[in-house]
């Protein structure tokens, strides 16, 4: 800079221009380098995955429609049975939704506790904040399937292992999101309640929860959506519900594709339905808050 200001005005413009161009070039170089590394990672990653896959990508690409076409054509041939089959699998679907709903309820309760105990300014025992945060980190990090499989071994198959597994993960995931919301809560109501001699649980129930409720409900609805998918997947590994029926129907193979089709339709319809309902309700919650 000193050099530029010492010399005349035209030179300084040239200096600025050249240094700007150099900067642009350096940025472009780094940007290009990042892009190159990214492309190399993607291509080599794709090749490794392709190598380690049982069937290759390019050989499989034209077969991708075969299975859906088989299922659809068989379902179309037996389209008269389809409503009956759909009705047959509704109880399994209800079980899947129940697993998701209960685990969301339990997870929300756990998440509220973890978040309140792990938020600065609100915690019951401020010294234990890191402990509760680590607990929720670990609960969040364990995939549902791990807990579900271990619990299936101990408790036997059925909805309860899946429910516990999803609830644990939900509590951890919501604990983090809830505590981010709770951090921004206004502390004045809490102080006011404290001045009247309210206990910790009264302060939380009356001072904090009404403030954060819209956000908490919105996150919980989002979790419910995710948990329906998770509970369908856990069914596939033996935890009951529609996923379990899907695996059985698929194991039968051709001839039973109409059952698989009925389950696909049910699952798809359910996911889309709850997606739409919850996103509409969530939009109302977050918009209502802005007013």
């Amino acid at each position, binding site marked *: 800079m000193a050099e530029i200001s010492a010399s005349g005005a035209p030179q300084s413009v040239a200096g600025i221009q050249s240094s700007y161009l150099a900067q642009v070039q350096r940025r472009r170089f780094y940007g290009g380098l990042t892009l190159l590394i990214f492309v190399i990672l993607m291509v080599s990653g794709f090749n490794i*995955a392709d190598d380690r896959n049982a069937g290759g990508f390019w050989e499989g690409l034209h077969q991708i429609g075969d*299975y859906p076409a088989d299922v659809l054509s068989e379902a179309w041939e037996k389209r008269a049975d389809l409503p009956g089959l759909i009705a047959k699998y509704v109880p399994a679907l209800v079980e899947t939704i*129940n697993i998701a709903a*209960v685990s969301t309820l339990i997870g929300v309760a756990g998440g509220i506790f973890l978040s309140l105990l792990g938020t600065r300014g609100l915690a019951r025992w401020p010294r234990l904040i890191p402990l509760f945060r680590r607990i929720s980190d670990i609960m969040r990090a364990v995939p549902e*399937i791990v807990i579900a499989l271990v619990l299936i*071994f101990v408790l036997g198959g059925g909805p*309860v292992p899946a429910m516990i597994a999803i609830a644990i993960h939900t509590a951890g995931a919501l604990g983090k999101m809830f505590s981010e919301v709770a951090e921004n809560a206004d502390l004045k109501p809490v102080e006011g309640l404290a001045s009247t001699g309210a206990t910790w649980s009264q302060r939380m129930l009356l001072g904090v929860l009404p403030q954060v409720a819209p956000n908490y409900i919105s996150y919980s609805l989002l979790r419910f959506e995710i948990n329906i998918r998770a509970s369908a997947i856990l069914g596939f590994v033996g935890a009951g519900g529609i*996923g379990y029926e899907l695996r059985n129907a698929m194991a039968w193979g051709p001839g039973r594709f109409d059952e698989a089709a009925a389950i696909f339709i049910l699952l798809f319809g359910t*996911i889309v339905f709850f997606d739409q309902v919850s996103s509409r309700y969530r939009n109302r919650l977050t918009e209502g808050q802005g007013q």
Partner: protein
Amino acid sequence: MTAIDLNLTKQDADKLFQRKRLIGFSIPALIFAYLVYIFFAFDVPGLAGRANLDNAVTLASDSWSHKVHVTRDNRSGEISYAVEGERKGLYPDGQRPDWVSGDSVVTIDLGGDHIVRYLPDNRTEVEVPGFPLIEVQAVGRTLTSNLPADLPDWISASNRRIAITTPEGRVTLTGARSEVFNYFPGWELFWFTLDSPYHGQSLGKILLGPRLDPDRSNIGGAVSDWWNNKMWRHKDVAWAIGETILMAFLGTMGAAILALPLAFLAAKRFSPVMLVRAGTRRIFDFVRGVDALIWTVVLARAFGPGPLTGALAILITDTGTFGKIFSEALENVDQKQIEGVSSTGAKPLQRYRFGVIPQVVPVLLAQILYFLESNTRSATIIGAITGGGIGLMLTQAIQTQKDWEEVAYYISLIVVMVMFMDWLSGWLRSKLIGRKD
């Protein structure tokens, strides 16, 4: 007038309070009623009958301890020593654990004065403190013993099979075989299997001592023996974790690349044709609604099991999710920057590149990085279904129902992997966007 007004207001307030009270009580009551319904729908009372507490005990003890089997084949009289009774854990010929001694009479010291002796002619003696010496003779398929008629609950005996469970170890005797299980804490043979020359050597001796295997340098040999450990398969585990992360990476990044141009088509501001917009949005809803589970099933038929199938399933599902999020971000861009860029005479593509992309990149990157972490978990689960990565190894280990130490190992690895990806995505986010949240 004012009095009536006040009355009306008070009535309104009363009504409001009544409604609030009703809601305040009815919501918890509804939740409670639902939980009661679930309690019976899920058959929680019957859970006690279905639960297998023995399994829980095996799981809890096996996950942190291991056992060494000492087995006598009663037909040939041969005695073998194996960790966890597996062929991979067999002691090489001529070697045996140091708590076994004797040649014609093999004495097994289980510790705590619990001693088992294998005598010639298929006789076995078990010494347990506070209990008379147990003598068992195996002839053909039957057992004769000096056990009294009324047995303590840690012994079960018939003329075909005798099982003795003590805190120090277990003894199982049948006509064909005599087996002793001695329990030890810790994971067995985690570093080296018994056939490796480095087994049982201290770290200092491996690093600094003379060559244990004349053909290889100590460190190279030790690393290669550890890497190829047949019991714990460190090489396969490392590959499996790599595959899982690869699935998450390929799926997330591929989805982002696909979703970005499609998101422009779905955003009102950039796509004036209603039909295109609605069509793209329905595509997003469809691929999202079909769900990773169904995509995995369908794709596994075409591509076979493996990491590529998992990556594609994540890619397709997340294209829908990203498309939705990206198009919402694109709707919310600030028009002023685009106007500024177009005032310099920029063409449409340049307007997008310099007016729109810089605005949405932070939002998109934050979402992509968040999904990278969450997809690592999904990849574990999808791997268990489609057959790839650490998820598959975990399900296989659980299905054998005996390698609980491996299950514990894989679970801790998965937790560490997910937490690492969580940290990595947070770190990248703060580096790239310069915001820490």
